[in-house]
């Protein structure tokens, strides 16, 4: 939609790539399903992730519905970098580091709002919504002694773009386009974010919480781990929504894992399985009525994904659940902590009472007070914390479920038989390793060959 910062003076410096942590290949042998626990504990690996994953990849930074009008902004994170995402007067979107280029103070303290300008509390440096420095306190002193304001605007992100209402940005000028980065995952994203002609919107605010776990435990869970649900969430499901989690491992021919460039989606074809856990019959009716129309808009296969038992992670740290309609980013805060930001997404054209029920549903299931979030959080915290043990962390972990289950199919992406699988998790970590080993985007191996055309 918009690569907003082209044509502006270069205002985003990047130091040359640092020396890599030695012998990264020792960290995993994915063909055997083996991986090291250092990924979840080592501080040097974490620092390298900030450089080669978070300061390089396209990261989710907001939904277009959050910033409809000129001057509307959200404050969010790219890794540990705080950024402002701002709607411009011409309708385009720009992103900036939330820091004053004068003495470094944060220029905006709100999570979201509408601004005519961002004024630093420290010395009154004032920036337009386009990031340009417009003036400051005691501006005459600067004018008398010479200063080119054009050289001192807010630091822009390298590129910003959006797909089906989801806004992404990258801090790496060398990054591929968003379309290339998402690749064949766009085919499946359309089932959810282009379910009908109105597209989606976020409703309510952002719910935040802190979990003492490594960010990758959360990402790998949503990229492909439905396996845990039948065990971890069984008692919660029985207590809260009146039934067991479906025994999806018994029907491997009716479910799939799909991945591309480290993004992954596990799903079956039951149309409403995830949604059913919210215990709201009206939501099921809404999806059943919509399904044939989605089949017409896209195809029958994708129409059966609209609320099915499923989960998806967009590499590296953004995930969502169709049917339960929670959308979330796992912001890293050191190797042992995440700040989780979650929203509820709905079809813009859905009736208000349907939107309200989804909001209530996400609060009951996937929020700090939601039963499933609690279940997951505790597992991830102890999966992380056990590695404090010096000898414990020298023991390998296993990620070998579903070897040799790749399907030969015309469907876009790499498609695997059975959603009870760890193929997506292995693809996620392969992408992680590729990025961690590569000194630049040009050196990142392109393992996955797109079937979709690049153009949006």
């Amino acid at each position: 939609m918009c690569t907003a910062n082209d044509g502006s003076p270069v205002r985003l410096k990047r130091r040359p790539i640092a020396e890599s942590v030695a012998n990264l290949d020792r960290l995993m042998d994915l063909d055997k399903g083996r991986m090291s626990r250092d990924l979840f504990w080592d501080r040097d690996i974490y620092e390298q992730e900030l450089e080669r994953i978070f300061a390089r990849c396209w990261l989710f930074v907001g939904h277009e519905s959050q910033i409809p009008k000129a001057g509307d902004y959200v404050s969010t994170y790219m890794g540990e970098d705080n950024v402002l995402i701002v709607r411009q007067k011409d309708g385009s979107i720009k992103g900036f580091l939330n820091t004053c280029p004068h003495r470094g103070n944060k220029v905006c303290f709100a999570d979201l709002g509408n601004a005519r300008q961002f004024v630093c509390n420290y010395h009154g440096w004032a920036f337009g919504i386009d990031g340009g420095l417009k003036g400051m306190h005691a501006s005459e002193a600067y004018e008398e002694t010479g200063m080119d304001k054009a050289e001192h605007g807010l630091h822009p992100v390298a590129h910003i773009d959006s797909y089906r209402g989801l806004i992404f940005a990258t801090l790496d000028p060398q990054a591929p386009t968003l379309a290339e980065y998402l690749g064949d995952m766009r085919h499946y994203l359309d089932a959810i974010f282009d379910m009908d002609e109105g597209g989606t919107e976020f409703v309510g605010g952002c719910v935040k919480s802190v979990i003492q776990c490594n960010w990758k435990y959360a990402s790998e869970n949503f990229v492909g781990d439905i396996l845990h649900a039948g065990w971890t969430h069984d008692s919660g499901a029985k207590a809260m929504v009146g039934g067991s989690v479906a025994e999806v491992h018994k029907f491997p021919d009716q479910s799939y894992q799909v991945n591309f460039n480290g993004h992954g989606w596990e799903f079956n074809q039951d149309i409403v399985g995830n949604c059913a856990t919210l215990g709201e019959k009206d939501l099921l009716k809404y999806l059943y009525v919509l399904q044939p129309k989605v089949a017409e808009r896209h195809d029958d296969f994708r129409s059966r994904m609209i609320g099915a038992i499923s989960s998806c992670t967009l590499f590296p740290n953004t995930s969502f659940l169709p049917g339960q309609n929670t959308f979330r980013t796992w912001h890293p805060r050191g190797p042992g902590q995440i700040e989780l930001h979650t929203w509820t997404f709905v079809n813009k054209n859905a009736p208000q009472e349907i939107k309200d029920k989804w909001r209530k549903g996400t609060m009951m299931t996937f929020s700090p007070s939601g039963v499933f979030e609690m279940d997951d959080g505790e597992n991830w915290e102890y999966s992380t914390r056990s590695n404090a043990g010096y000898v414990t962390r020298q023991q390998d972990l296993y990620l070998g479920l579903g070897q040799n289950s790749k399907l030969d199919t015309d469907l876009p992406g790499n498609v695997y038989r059975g959603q009870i699988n760890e193929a997506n998790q292995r693809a996620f970590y392969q992408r992680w390793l590729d990025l961690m080993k590569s000194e630049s985007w040009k050196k990142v191996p392109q393992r996955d060959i797109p079937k979709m055309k690049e153009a949006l």
Partner: protein
Amino acid sequence: MSEPVFVMKKNELEAGKVRKFDLCGNAIAVYNLNGTFYATQDNCTHATASLSEGDIVDDECIACPVHDGTFHIPTGQPMSFPCEHAIRTYKVIDQGDAVMVDFDQEADEAADAI
């Protein structure tokens, strides 16, 4: 008393908008507040800024585009931090479909306020 100077036709500035004019050596900001026209100096009295690049807020105030301080348009009085000194106003003379400004007189509202 000097002659009023022609600024523009009324239909050249829609309601809720502000526009800058350079006339007779003065940079002025002309405002259309719901069909009533006002004129003030264009420079902010706090920092270097052109008020006509700001937004009209709270129906009859101009928000400076740099620090977001505000002035009351009809009287020129400062309304919010960091603006502390009033801006000069100019009397707008209504002549049919034309907006005329008298550079020697304050707006009536400003004169009343002082």
